[in-house]
């Protein structure tokens, strides 16, 4: 079927709920209203109020109760309405969700999913546009996936729901309805921890994920035409666990790398990728690895958000810097 990214979320939830009656969907405004982005539309009608329910406004208890339900054998898929509101739930992710299996030596587990729309670019209110994926990827025991296409969204969400351990699914809300693409009907999974090579190339590896993927691909296409270079674009899809091998193989081949993300630069996930490349492919590098990111400032409100977000021209310039860069002493 041809679907938008948010329709793919809805489709994945339907498949999962039909497949397993232990899947429970809940969060703020997800049942009666079908979610503020309509990701859960129609689910309550189909599966009833015990499996699809509206909760009090408390990210702490939404995340924490999911741990308890999951320990009990349920498969909670809880929505945090905007990823900007994950921080209240951070304690539950750090102290509970991520370490239940570890603390109990595998006796109790938390197979739960938290899904949250993340990122800017939809002219939302303050606190509605953050990208804190690096903070979540830093928590051992918490898996973090960030799809960028409708098919991957469905596939990763279904994998996350079936996964025996907790998964945070960050959905790029800027891409929720920006384009349609083919999504396989019915059962469709994408393995967690596998990156996708979107375009193959020889001269530079450009790595991104989630919301910045379309702009990254567009920038790469422009540069390929402009400069007669071939660019390998990798969509990480999962940032924890990270598909090191795909990244390293590509960088060993191209000798150059640039990383694009929307989050602030310092301590962002690009830093982890630079370190990974240093560990596994430093001697193949012909130039310093570049980072094209948001600035080290809070995500601005809507008037300035387009100046904060990496856009194709900024990505092009960042890639050019690496292509023109020289290594050595």
């Amino acid at each position, binding site marked *: 079927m041809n679907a938008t990214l948010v329709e793919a979320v809805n489709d994945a939830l339907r498949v999962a709920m039909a497949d397993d009656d232990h899947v429970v969907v809940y969060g703020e405004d997800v049942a009666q209203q079908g979610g503020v982005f309509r990701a859960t539309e129609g689910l309550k009608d189909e599966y009833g109020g*015990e499996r699809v329910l509206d909760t009090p406004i408390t990210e*702490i208890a*939404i995340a*924490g*109760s999911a741990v308890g339900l999951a*320990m009990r054998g*349920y498969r909670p898929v809880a929505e945090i309405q905007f990823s900007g509101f994950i921080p209240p739930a951070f304690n539950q992710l750090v102290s509970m969700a991520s370490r239940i299996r570890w603390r109990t*030596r595998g006796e109790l587990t938390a197979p739960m999913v938290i899904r949250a729309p993340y990122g800017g670019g939809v002219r939302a209110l303050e606190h509605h546009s953050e990208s804190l994926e690096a903070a979540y990827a830093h928590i051992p025991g918490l898996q973090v996936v960030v799809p960028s296409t409708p098919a991957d969204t469905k596939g990763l969400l279904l994998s996350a729901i079936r996964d025996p351990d907790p998964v945070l699914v960050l959905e790029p809300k800027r891409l929720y309805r920006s384009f349609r693409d083919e999504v396989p009907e019915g059962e469709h999974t994408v393995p967690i921890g596998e990156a996708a090579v979107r375009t193959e190339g020889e001269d530079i590896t450009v790595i991104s994920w989630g919301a910045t993927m379309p702009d990254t691909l567009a920038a790469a296409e422009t540069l390929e035409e402009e400069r007669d270079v071939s660019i390998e674009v990798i969509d990480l899809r999962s940032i924890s666990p990270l598909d090191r091998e795909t990244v390293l193989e590509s960088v060993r081949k191209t000798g150059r790398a640039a990383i694009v993300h929307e989050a602030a630069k310092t301590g962002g996930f690009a830093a982890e990728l630079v370190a990974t490349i240093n560990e596994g492919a430093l001697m193949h590098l012909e130039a310093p690895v570049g980072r094209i990111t948001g600035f080290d400032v809070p995500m601005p409100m809507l008037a300035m958000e387009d100046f904060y977000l990496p856009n194709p021209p900024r990505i092009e310039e960042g890639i050019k810097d690496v292509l023109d860069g020289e290594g050595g002493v």
Partner: protein
Amino acid sequence: MSQLDEGPAYLGAASESLAECTISEPERTPPRYQIVDADGSYDESQVPAIGDEELIDLYRWMVLQQVVDDRMVKLQRRGEMGTYASVRGQEASVVGCAFALEDDDWLFPYGREGAAELIQGMPLRDLLLYWRGVEDANKQAANNTFPPAIAIGTHIPVGVGFAWGMRLDDDDAIAALYHGDGHPSTGEYQAGVNFGSVVDAPALLFCPNNGYSISASFEQQTRAKSVAQKGIAWGIDGIRVDGNDVLAVYDAVKTAREHVADGNPTIVEAVTYRLDAHTTNDDPSRYRDQAEVDWWEDREPVGRFESFLQQRGVWDDIDPAAIREEANEQFDEAKAAADAFEKRDVSEMFEYLYDDLPPELERQLKDFESFLEARPDAYDYIEHRPKG
């Protein structure tokens, strides 16, 4: 639209009296439910219908808790135990609540309730191992026991979610969430209890209120006069009970449990006192007067229950010295078993994080193992590094 004839449920009646529309903090601290007085006397009609054997069991558990506290603190002083949190003074609340639970109920502890864990079925050896920092001690799923919530309040939403699952499964069981008087100050507690009230979670919020969160007195912790009253804000009941009266705690929890099992989260606040330090790392003389400690020492719960058993005529049938000796023997055995517990391999740190070991973790484990092989002196460093 007929339900709107009298207005929506949250509207309430109109009133011209501001006083009538003010929901007040109670002027005095609400009373606590008591069966046995501080001197051990009691009203026969108030005593719950439990046999002499069970009365003696209650006594045994409290004595065991006393012995465990005494010996754990000594072991810690000798460097054979990690930081330990003594229960001394709170034996009645810990045991009374645990004794009122049913077989299928789950315990979500917070760290100061060893006897409750033992009543659930945890081997005493594992209690020692837990305080020695061995993660294997947290394997208590078969005993319906969750690892202790050392991070204050964190277990409340989790226990509520677990209880919610019990209701969805139509189980006739509850989750008992033990917590101290500091937990209700956390967002986790407030969010969790409110959430539980909405999803009809069969969760018992059991709070041995010992007057202190480390050094912060209950008055510094909250302006509320009681923990029990906090439930009003979330539409649930709260009960205050004398936490040094094991029969009152047992009776109150037994009653509350039925209400909880019907999907009504309930707070039971057991008013008590911690006679020992917060943990073996704490010096309580910095924040509380000896006179206060002495006042409570005179009202400690095990002696009170002994007086009750004497007045009840049960005391003649037991040999208190033998009960204490038996508890010490149990501890000796548990200590020997804990000492014999074989140290696990370093892979233990890695293997339980995910169902499947991700490639990067596998790599880190392999690297670490080769490092240990190449540098066995690292073991010496670890063994000889000054501890604590």
